[in-house]
């Protein structure tokens, strides 16, 4: 029997990793200098979750993928121009602050409210996807909090693979310590899955997919509701760049034998 899923992917925006980041403190707390003009991308692990969701939906006709994302409208629009060309989804944008310093509990509350309000979402068939951590806050708690708010108590983190069976149950591989996967079998949906990298490569851009997506993305962005994130008692004592500059010795004129001898001595040194 075919499975049909309602897959909700939660994904944030992050600065392009090649950008230089400089923290600044403003009246509303810490942020990044020129945050709004830094090029942004979809959070890498959440992007893996989106590609896995689209792949699962494609294999199971009748399934649907929503992408719920919190960020400034202008930034969401910029990132969606690229992401929309990858896979089919329906965007659920929420107009709110960007960045890693807001409280994860507040983010989770806003996202959970948006998911609860999704028209046509069948909670019994729901798979809540996202990255197991973000590349901004990296807390790795937002999905669990959303799951609790939605009453989903089968949760998996660091997921690299799921395999559905005909009876609706699925096997899931979660990353655990020591380069291993924990293998579990869940009776079926609903479930929360925080993805690591998964096994899929990034899909190629497909202009037809992009055009189909943009027909719904632009109206959704125009209607995006503004969200305010509560601090929940969180305050920052300091936010700073680490003192990371090392005095690098650049060795240009040694032969492979000499380099090898130096490296072997270094490896053996306590």
């Amino acid at each position, binding site marked *: 029997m075919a499975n049909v899923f309602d897959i909700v992917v939660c994904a944030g925006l992050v600065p392009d990793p090649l950008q230089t980041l400089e923290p600044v403190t403003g009246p509303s707390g810490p942020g990044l200098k020129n945050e709004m003009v830094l090029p942004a991308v979809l959070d890498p692990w959440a992007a893996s979750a989106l590609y896995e969701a689209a792949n699962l939906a494609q294999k199971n006709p009748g399934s649907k993928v929503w992408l719920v994302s919190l960020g400034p409208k202008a930034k969401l629009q910029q990132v969606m121009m690229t992401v929309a060309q990858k896979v089919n989804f329906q965007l659920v944008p929420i107009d709110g602050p960007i960045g890693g310093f807001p409280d994860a509990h507040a983010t989770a509350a806003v996202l959970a409210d948006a998911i609860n309000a999704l028209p046509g979402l069948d909670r019994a068939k729901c798979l809540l996807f996202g990255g197991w951590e973000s590349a901004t806050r990296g807390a790795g708690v937002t999905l669990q909090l959303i*799951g609790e708010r939605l009453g989903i108590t089968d*949760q998996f983190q660091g997921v690299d693979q799921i395999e559905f069976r005909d009876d609706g149950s699925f096997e899931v591989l979660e990353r*655990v310590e020591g380069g291993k996967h924990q293998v579990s079998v869940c009776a079926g949906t609903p479930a929360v899955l925080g993805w690591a990298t998964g096994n899929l*490569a990034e899909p190629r851009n497909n202009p037809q997919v992009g055009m189909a997506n943009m027909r719904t993305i632009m109206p959704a962005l125009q209607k995006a509701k503004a969200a305010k994130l509560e601090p929940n*008692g*969180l305050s*920052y004592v300091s936010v700073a*760049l680490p003192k990371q500059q090392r005095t690098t010795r650049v060795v240009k004129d040694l032969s*492979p034998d000499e380099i090898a001898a130096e490296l072997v001595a270094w490896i053996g040194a306590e």
Partner: protein
Amino acid sequence: MEAILVLTHADETGSALTRASLEAVTAGKELAARLSASLTIGILAADPTAAAAILSSTGARLLAVSGESFAQARYASDAAAVEALCRAAQATIVLAPGSSRLTRVAAGVAHRLGGFIDTHITALGGAEAIEATRWFYRQRVEAVLSRNTRPWFLLLDAGTHAAFAAEPAAATVEQVSVELPALRTTVSGFRAPAQDAQTIRPDAKILLVAGAGWTKKQPDGQIHAAEAGELILGFLKATGASLGSSKSLVDQGGDGVPVLPFLTHMNQIGQTGATPRHAKGLSTCCHGEEPHVVGWRFIGDRRAISLDPNCGWTRGKADVVYIADAFPVLNKVNALLNSAKA
């Protein structure tokens, strides 16, 4: 006054505490002493006897949730267990190791208790209030934060505290009963490469990172991926090093088969991968730009072999950079290491 609960859990044996749990115990003892706070330790294990004996000398109140249902790391049962431990302890501060087991459930439990959570804590300081240090933006920005809401859950990164050690002694443990929800998930075991093929070794002293340069065309105009694989595995065998990789190298290959067959996405270091802790790190054929280097935050002594004298490593990100071809260098290194062993 704060009441501190340290959550601990058993390893795969079901009875011995994990190293990360013992590190959390050290952090809890230090924090309790500094704040003159009460200390409770919660144990999650199939059989808590051995763990309790080790923790006896802490002088802390010991609580345990035990039984076969808790031998498996699973959200529904672990969340119920941790919730029961927290309610029994009436803690305002909950410290826990940032292990896969407790990371999976701690946020959910914090929500159930009306509390809040912060993770990846690397240090606990502050004179009067508790101030927690953690990294943001994949180890690129460091912040110290505080909360005035309770209960406050703090998950500690592994390797940030010494592991608690003591001789086993008789201990009094209070068993905490748990009302389990319907369990829909069964853990069937673990999947890992064969012992001699496992390239991820968290306890290794040295990390070897392989970049995409290993599979680029060499001076003879050919790609030598097989030779690259032999050199890398030879180094791992000779040194016991752990293997990391850049995403670009793992992603190479076709039909999901990597060009170096022993590499998986779990080897990835950096923006889309792990941030391991090793005393030394050697980067090979990797350009050392920011997405890679953010995974090196906790690598002590860093060296790199690169053909590019302007690569990222030369800009203050490594201690020593050898401008050389990694193929002959690693070949010689392996030969020297093997001859020394022989």
